[in-house]
């Protein structure tokens, strides 16, 4: 049976059509708006003014840098916890069932609630400092601090179960025979993990890292509540530009820059893991 051009297009229509309509079209509209040819706000004809504003103003440059920081740092922090946790959860231990239920709780807690939890626990005069005060210990500043530790804690707290779930799934799908075969060939548990299990779970780990990264890039509520007064992330500046200054051109330019940064990070990450895979696992073809 040969598929004619028309049938092919018809078959592709539901999938591709959906993407074009709900992803491509808004993206194009945002791009046009940021170039001054928008349908929202004033139409002023083609201009690069908004991008020039964005990159010439040090406030926005700091915003870009800060947005990148609060998406990379929580992703790395989550990975540092989720990967060992996923490995531990492959084994059986008493109380595992209860733990498996409990550790997923942050998945269903909204980001803003997570931010308030961190605030109540870790802010100056919060629960933790009250508990620690009689012992003579004091917490470092964790809310509205220069390093945004509170933001990182809240975002990581949200994404650790999600990452653990994905990486755990990737690890669990590796047949047990592979580890047994490697052990019989003289590999200890550590070597089996680094040379067999990790390379095989890498696609899952990659997916988890990218999803968490993209999720954190656009975080709004958590940095607004827990972040320092300055710098603010691009997401917050975007909101202010659009709703307080009614400058949709600038807001969409920020959106486009943020998307471009996310794409660039994804590309770099793909290159890195590709190289990593080759280095520790052997050929990838």
């Amino acid at each position, binding site marked *: 049976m040969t598929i004619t051009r028309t049938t092919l297009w018809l078959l592709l229509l539901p999938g591709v059509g959906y993407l074009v309509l709900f992803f491509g079209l808004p993206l194009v509209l945002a791009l046009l708006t940021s170039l001054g040819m928008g349908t929202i706000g004033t139409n002023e004809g083609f201009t690069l003014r908004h991008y020039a504003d964005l990159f010439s103003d040090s406030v926005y440059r700091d915003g870009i840098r800060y947005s990148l920081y609060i998406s990379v740092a929580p992703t790395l922090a989550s990975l540092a916890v989720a990967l060992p946790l996923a490995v531990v959860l492959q084994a059986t231990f008493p109380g595992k069932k209860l733990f498996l239920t409990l550790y997923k709780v942050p998945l269903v807690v909204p980001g803003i609630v997570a931010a308030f939890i961190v605030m109540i626990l870790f802010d100056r005069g919060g629960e933790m400092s009250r508990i620690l005060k009689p012992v003579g210990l004091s917490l470092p500043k964790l809310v509205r601090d220069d390093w945004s530790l509170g933001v990182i804690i809240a975002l990581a707290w949200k994404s650790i179960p999600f990452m653990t779930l994905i990486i755990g799934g990737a690890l669990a799908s590796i047949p047990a025979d592979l580890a047994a*075969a490697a*052990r*019989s060939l*003289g*590999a*200890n548990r550590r070597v089996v993990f680094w040379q067999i299990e990790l390379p095989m779970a890498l696609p899952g780990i990659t997916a988890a890292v990218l999803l968490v990264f993209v999720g954190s890039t656009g975080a709004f509520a958590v940095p607004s509540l827990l972040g320092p007064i300055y710098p603010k992330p691009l997401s917050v500046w975007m909101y202010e530009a659009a709703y307080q200054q009614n400058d949709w051109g600038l807001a969409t330019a920020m959106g486009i820059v943020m998307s471009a940064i996310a794409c660039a990070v994804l590309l770099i990450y793909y290159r890195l893991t590709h190289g990593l895979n080759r280095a520790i*696992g052997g*050929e990838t073809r």
Partner: protein
Amino acid sequence: MVANVQIIGLRKTFGPTVAVDDFSLTVAEGEFVALLGPSGCGKTTVMRMIAGITDPDQGQITLSGQRIDALMPERRHVGLVFQSYALFPHMSVARNVAFGLKMRRQTAGQIAVKVAETLALVDMSSYADRLPRELSGGQQQRVALARAIAIEPRLLLLDEPLSNLDAKLREQLRDDLKALQRRLGITTIHVTHDQSEAMALADRVVVMNAGAIVEVGTPRDLYQTPKTRFTAQFLGHTNIIPARVQFGRMITPWGELLGAAPLGAGAVQLSVRPEDLGLAACDQGAGHVTEVTFLGAEVEHRIAIAGLMLRSRSSGRDAPVHPVGTKVVLSFPADLHHLSQEPAL
């Protein structure tokens, strides 16, 4: 390098289920032993305990005098081949075979030589750079075998290595496996549920059922003179005939077996292989043919006699075919065999 194996009183339970109980076995240096039994009989658990993947509850495993049952699997120096091949999917054939050698900290030069040598041994030299997923099942199993023997193990464990292959390929690989084992002289324990595979490969067969050893012997002894009904029926087909020995005469349900040597005493169970049971058409015969099946190399008759249903097989071009309903007399081999370890019926 090659070791003998001594297993004493091995036991393993999974919750309330006893998987293996009181398993003791000695395997000589260079011997090929098959663990044969239906699925769930505990044969794979025994193999996993020898490899160190499963910890035994009780018992000892000794390789050439060295206790290994408490050693980590990576310290046992035992080769393992799985039914699922278990090749590392992200490594080429050559890197799979080199894996165990790298773990032994051999130099790159030594490894390259050994990998080339071992791949040549299993006829896979031209596939060194392929990934496992680019190979057929039979080729993958050859690589798995090469990977296991490259480390020159003291003992080779094969867990149903041929079961995922189709019949033609299975036979081919079976012959290659046997030749390779004889050539290298590696002590080998082969786990299988396929009785023809066990008989074709092994010097000795260990028949297992429900976690325990039923019988141990050479393929010929187990086939021709099984002591138990389980062995007689698990290795090929057999006719079990309840009989009595009275005043030196053998009495079967349909009458006396003339000329049969007195054997056993009181009630006995005879085991007669279908190919040993002869039949001839006779109007006064006590049995009659109920079914005739042409199997190509053989003709099988089913005979109803005194409430029993027996099978007889004859081979060759001129094998007689008796139509259904023909009255027949049966003829038995001179050296009748009875199941000595079966309780009398």
